[in-house]
């Protein structure tokens, strides 16, 4: 009896040793560097797509890691390493700084001016606000205009119902998502749903299933459902620029498939990888693209989505208080 009890207890410990916990690098400059490099190596989803030689980057940056580096110096070094990914969804967060890559919009024309849209020619001072949306009639009351600048600002069906009713006599609608850096994906689906007549496959998404750079799950279809009761059936123009990023990029990707809709302005900023978070031994958090999102043709959306009609705001128009993209959208909606 005694032997059986001892054997049973030993068995439990023997089984326990079968599940071995992964070893975490030590909280040293080198340990933190290795932990960060490995997180990206095993979890970042675009290493192959972007043709990045992450091993070679390891060699280059590891040579610069030294025990004498201060927290600021280590942060800058690791931030620079992450910058090689050229991804706006990749950041390193510490208590004193946040690394970022912003060239996806700083290297391009702004194509947006809040001074212009809040001028009397467009929204003026007497616009309405419902949920996260600012709206009013423009072009002599013939076109409805909504500016939605943040997909983290929620709106409801009731908000949209009021807005659509307000615009019921308009010939068309402009949904301006320029300078909208993203937010919640469910809101991009909800906003797009008002412009679809039937449920439509508008994209795909994958996630990583292993540490290898090509270990991905089977693609899951992303459907944009047609809203059951609220529908805008007249023409709609979606305005985009390089700062239309992440969830906004997803909204634009969906709207490319919507009937009676066209995208106008500049190519969107991208941000097609749904970001997740992790952390390194010193407690700094890293955000990185983990799940690649594709358009309806299974094409990556990481670098942005081309508009149907490419328009830039010209310096002359801007000087004259004219938003070239809105004006072109009005022309197209009235065709």
């Amino acid at each position, binding site marked *: 009896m005694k032997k059986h009890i001892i054997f049973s207890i030993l068995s439990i410990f023997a*089984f326990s040793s079968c*599940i071995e916990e992964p070893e975490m690098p030590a909280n040293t400059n080198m340990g933190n560097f290795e932990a960060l490099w490995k*997180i990206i190596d095993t979890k970042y989803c675009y290493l192959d797509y972007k043709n990045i030689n992450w091993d070679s980057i390891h060699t280059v940056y590891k040579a610069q890691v030294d025990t004498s580096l201060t927290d600021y110096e280590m942060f800058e070094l690791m931030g620079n390493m992450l910058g090689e990914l050229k991804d706006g969804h990749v950041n390193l967060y510490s208590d004193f700084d946040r690394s970022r890559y912003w060239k996806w919009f700083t290297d391009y024309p702004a194509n947006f001016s809040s001074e212009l849209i809040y001028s009397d020619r467009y929204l003026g001072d007497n616009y309405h606000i419902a949920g996260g949306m600012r709206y009013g009639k423009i072009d002599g009351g013939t076109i409805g205009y909504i500016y939605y600048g943040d997909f983290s600002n929620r709106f409801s069906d009731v908000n949209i119902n009021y807005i659509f009713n307000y615009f019921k006599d308009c010939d068309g609608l402009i949904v301006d998502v320029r300078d909208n850096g993203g937010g919640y994906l469910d809101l991009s689906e909800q906003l797009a749903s008002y412009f679809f007549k039937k449920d439509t496959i508008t994209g795909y998404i994958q996630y990583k299933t292993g*540490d290898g750079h090509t270990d991905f799950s089977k693609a899951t279809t992303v459907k944009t459902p047609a809203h059951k009761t609220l529908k805008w059936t007249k023409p709609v123009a979606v305005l985009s620029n390089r700062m239309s990023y992440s969830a906004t990029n997803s909204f634009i990707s969906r709207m490319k498939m919507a009937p009676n809709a066209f995208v106008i302005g500049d190519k969107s900023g991208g941000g097609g990888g*749904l970001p997740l978070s*992790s952390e390194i031994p010193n*407690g700094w958090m890293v955000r990185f693209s983990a799940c690649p999102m594709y358009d309806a043709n299974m094409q990556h959306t990481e670098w942005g989505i081309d508009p149907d009609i490419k328009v830039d705001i010209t310096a002359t128009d801007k000087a004259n208080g004219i938003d070239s993209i809105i004006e072109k959208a009005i022309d197209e909606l009235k065709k």
Partner: protein
Amino acid sequence: MSAQNETLQKYALISANDQLGFTSLSLLDPYLSPMTYSGIGMKYEHAERRFFSPENTKLSMEGKIRALVGMTLNPEYTASTTYIGANYSWGMHYHFQIMDHFQVLAGGTADAVFGFKSNARNVNNPINLDMATNLNLSGVARYDFKTRRRTLRLSYTLEIPVLGCMYVPYGGASYYEMFGLGNLSDAFHFSSLHNKLGSSGSLMLDVPFKRSTWRFGINSSDLKYQANNLIFKQNEFSLMIGCKYDLHIFAGTKTPAPLNFISTDK
């Protein structure tokens, strides 16, 4: 005559206990973070046991509800994970009277676990669900010993998960895809000793006083499981205090209260 019959009637009492504990908690959830978080929490446990029938005093059933709320921090105190979870188990035990003062209960339980871990700092992976069902081996050892003024009971309870089902997503899968798009494939796993190891043990001392019986003791629970290339860990150590009591439920027409039991509901 009727009253006399009722005094001879046997009733299977429900032996219940309620306990509250202060818990030291350690969590490793690689879906949220590769780091082990540690902190403190509060644990509550309610258990009820009774014999299947008053005539058969060898086989008893037990129902147990456990809840734990905890707050943990990463080693550098830069991020926190909150844990809120509950567990309901039901099981049966056979009673072996080894000696006059020593009893062993052996049997099994089935339980269901539901909880969530929330890392406030994370972006699209701020929450991970803790969902599982288990079939457990379960045993209790009870030893009664007399002191000058009262008889104390020392009991040790051990529970080991053997078979079950658990929810473990891929580390790279987002909750948007799982719950927004409904792709839950590869998230539910069969569990057994090859991928889930754990034990939960309690050492309790029951001390009867004039009007109540109090329980004091410790509870230690260790759990480790793996799926989808992720290894999870949850260790708890609790100092428990509570009380135990016996009760019987008289309800409906089948089991009315005997006449010598006076209810305020009459």
